[in-house]
């Protein structure tokens, strides 16, 4: 059994079009948004004047220098969101491969080339983060402030310093890339040589990777997202990022499979495979909601100002803490939990493309929305809203992601031949339930 995906001219053009249009929109956005940024800044100053003397979230956001939320900052924040967005999907796919190998899951064998292809985006994701290394002081308050200005940040300097930040992130990226590259290599070698050697080796690599992943991914989450608001802390934060990653990675795998199937590839992928990925999407979105509640409920309940400020910034409507995120805050739970929960509950919904695709697109938006809500208040301050800059940056990243993933799909047989669980996967059924 052998089948190869061809990344034909038409789809190539669409993907390049995405990148091109994205860049054009971004430039247009920069051109048009110059003044609105200033207006928002003026409004912010007004708020500062009114509430002078209070413990002040707005002032806190910008640090003690209080500089304007420039368009440059906004673009940086958007690049960070784009980089995070596709890095989380990639890592979700890599975790999918590793955990299923460790768990001896047979059903996913027939579709495993898709997550494998997704993991090949990892080097590009790393480059997008590496580019941000040069702008740390524009993104992060702790990198921007001199020592001696903020006592709490000074307490954390042993961890939050640029040198340590760059070095440990390079180690994380290196480890992830190594695991992704090696697992892919083993998988392709399996196609050629068969046997159980590569298969068993992959089990060991996966187990080691999962341990490394648990530690590195939570530190990665702290570094790139949580430290945007360096005073705030929450122990669950890494798991929260992980939950979001898994939802969007599963949706991405599902949608790419649908695309391939519509193109006439992968005829052996049946309802049951889609059903199982659909179950993951459902399950992980519930898991995401669980982690969301765990973090929100505990912080809300104990009402400690140092912690509560994170949410105050995000949902206060009337008083001085107003940053314009309150609608985003509630909408986040709607798109990431209530929509998939109600729409994907039944068995048929997970198997019916016409139901799943809209829900999947909503969830993919939801993941972006979630990241926006995590990044923007810390990196920019006032809610800049979603306009051409946001759309343009995202489209550019999306085009890049699709280009890399589809190119990677052409590089290998879509069927992982000689995989010991292939037969099981080809005959996979979920029964009547």
């Amino acid at each position, binding site marked *: 059994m052998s089948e190869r995906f061809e990344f034909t001219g038409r789809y190539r053009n669409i993907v390049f079009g995405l990148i091109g249009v994205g860049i054009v929109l971004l430039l247009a956005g920069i051109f048009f948004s110059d003044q609105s940024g200033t207006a928002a800044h003026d409004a912010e100053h007004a708020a500062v004047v009114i509430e002078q003397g209070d413990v002040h979230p707005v002032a806190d956001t910008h640090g003690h220098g209080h500089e304007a939320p420039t368009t440059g900052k906004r673009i940086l924040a958007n690049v960070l969101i784009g980089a995070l967005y596709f890095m989380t999907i990639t890592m979700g796919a890599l975790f999918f491969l590793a955990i299923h190998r460790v768990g001896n899951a047979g059903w996913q064998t027939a579709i495993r080339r898709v997550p494998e292809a997704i993991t090949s985006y990892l080097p590009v994701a790393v480059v997008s983060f590496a580019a941000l290394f040069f702008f740390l002081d524009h993104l992060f308050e702790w990198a921007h402030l001199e020592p001696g200005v903020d006592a709490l940040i000074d307490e*954390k300097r042993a961890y939050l310093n640029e040198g340590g930040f760059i070095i440990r992130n390079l180690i994380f990226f290196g480890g992830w890339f190594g695991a992704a590259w090696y697992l892919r290599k083993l998988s392709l070698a399996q196609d050629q040589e068969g046997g159980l050697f590569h298969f068993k080796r992959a089990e060991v690599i996966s187990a080691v990777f999962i341990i490394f992943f648990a530690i590195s991914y939570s530190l990665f989450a702290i570094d790139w997202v949580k430290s945007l608001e360096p005073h705030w802390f929450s*122990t669950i934060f890494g798991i929260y990022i992980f939950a979001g990653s898994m939802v969007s990675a599963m949706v991405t795998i599902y949608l790419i499979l649908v695309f391939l199937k519509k193109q006439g590839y992968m005829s052996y992928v049946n309802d049951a495979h889609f059903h199982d990925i659909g179950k993951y999407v459902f399950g992980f979105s519930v898991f995401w909601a669980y982690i969301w509640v*765990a973090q929100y409920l*505990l912080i809300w309940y104990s009402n400690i100002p140092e912690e509560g400020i994170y949410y105050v910034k995000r949902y206060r409507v009337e008083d001085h803490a107003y940053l314009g995120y309150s609608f985003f805050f509630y909408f986040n739970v709607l798109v990431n939990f209530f929509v998939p929960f109600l729409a994907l509950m039944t068995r048929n919904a997970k198997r019916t493309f016409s139901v799943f695709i809209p829900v999947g697109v909503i969830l993919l938006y939801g993941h972006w929305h979630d990241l926006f809500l995590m990044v923007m208040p810390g990196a920019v301050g006032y809610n800049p809203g979603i306009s051409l800059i946001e759309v343009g940056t995202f489209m550019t990243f999306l085009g890049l992601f699709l280009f890399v993933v589809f190119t990677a799909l052409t590089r290998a047989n879509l069927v992982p031949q000689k995989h010991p669980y292939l037969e099981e*996967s080809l005959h996979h059924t979920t*029964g009547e339930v």
Partner: protein
Amino acid sequence: MSHVRSPIRQKWVTNTETYGKITEDITRPIESKPNPIWLAATAFSGLVMTIGFALIGWTMWKGIGTWGLNPTVGWAFDITNFVFWVGIGHAGTLISAVLLLFRQEWRNSINRASEAMTIFAVLCAGLFPILHMGRPWLGLWFLPLPNTRGSLWVNFNSPLLWDVFAISTYLTVSLVFWYLGMIPDFATIRDRMARAGRKVAAAIYGGMAFGWEGSSRNWSRFEIISLILSGLATPLVLSVHSIVSMDFATSVIPGWHTTIFPPYFVAGAIFSGFGMVQTLMIVTRKVYKLENYITMDHMESIAKIVIATGSLVGFAYMTEFFIAWYSGSLWERYIFINRAFGPFGWSYWIMFTCNVITPQLFWFKKIRTNMVITFIISIFINVGMWFERFVIIVTSLHRDFLPSSWASYVPTWVEAGIFIGTFGLFMFCFFLFSKFLPVVNMFEVKTLLHHPKKPAHLEAGESGTSESVSA
């Protein structure tokens, strides 16, 4: 379930070729006379249980002043034991529900015993908060019922009340799930007893079998509700220990108030539960000669889950420590230094060694497959998980915000006795269960037997009659 099995997969049922043999092997303890060791063990655990109940009586007579609590350390042994037992209760539902959703075939032969374990553990757990009320006979006030006490309502904002809802839901749903799974097996025992002419036993098991006939229409419904119950029990099992963790995490006590508590408690609960499953299964498979059903591969799978959850727990310890430092908060930092190096530091290191280091030994196949060492490690895990709760509860409390309120805590013999008594209760229930109910889920194990041989009773040319059922 996929109909094709990869040849590299292991067999979960070994040395067994007919369905009849499965029935025979598993019903043997029920049909035979109780052996003396079982009688002695049951009597002993019954004795321990009785002592525990006597001490409970003493506590109720004198009040909880008989315990070592003081105004600073107002929660100690009782809540530690409560969380410990609830935690153990988690493995059962995890095995029967979560592993069913993940189509893990090895769960089929250990789910029954672990569910039983769950129920008995939750019973033990339930005792402690009720006793800690001081006036347990007013426990009814915890229910949100219209009343004449000036229409005094419960406080829905209180995590302790959430616990009431969570634990009672968990207990009843687990009980129903467990019982439902036993109905087909009761029918099997009923018919065997009837064939052997044991009318009383047949009537008793028949009564419990709810008239089960095993028709395909019934099976079809039965399977679907098992799956739906699993789907419901999976978030339930997560919610229960999350809510238990919120008893602590909603407070403003450093060391208690941390957002990772819900998932961390769940991981710890599964870890401790699997530790207890190991302890019980190693003994059960040996005593009842069930090595063909609870194979070495089963024990290895359990050990792998123990590594995974043990590492998760260790990961949570490190996260807590790191974020306590990262927070920059004096109180957060102090409580964690004090945990590891303060007066209760010894308990911290017991916890750390037992929960994080010992399970790592299971990375070695030699250790995973050595039942003596596995048994010892499983005991370590049980001890370690008890200490984890002790560390969390007592070390966070004994250093109050005001140094003048600092205190220590020593349990009294009454508290210790009640705790040991719950072990008696737990083991007593488990022994009764292992004698009178099928320890392994027969019908689910039968689905794992592919390509059976012709049954012996057909080879002999007879049909419809039984062979060698001891009367």
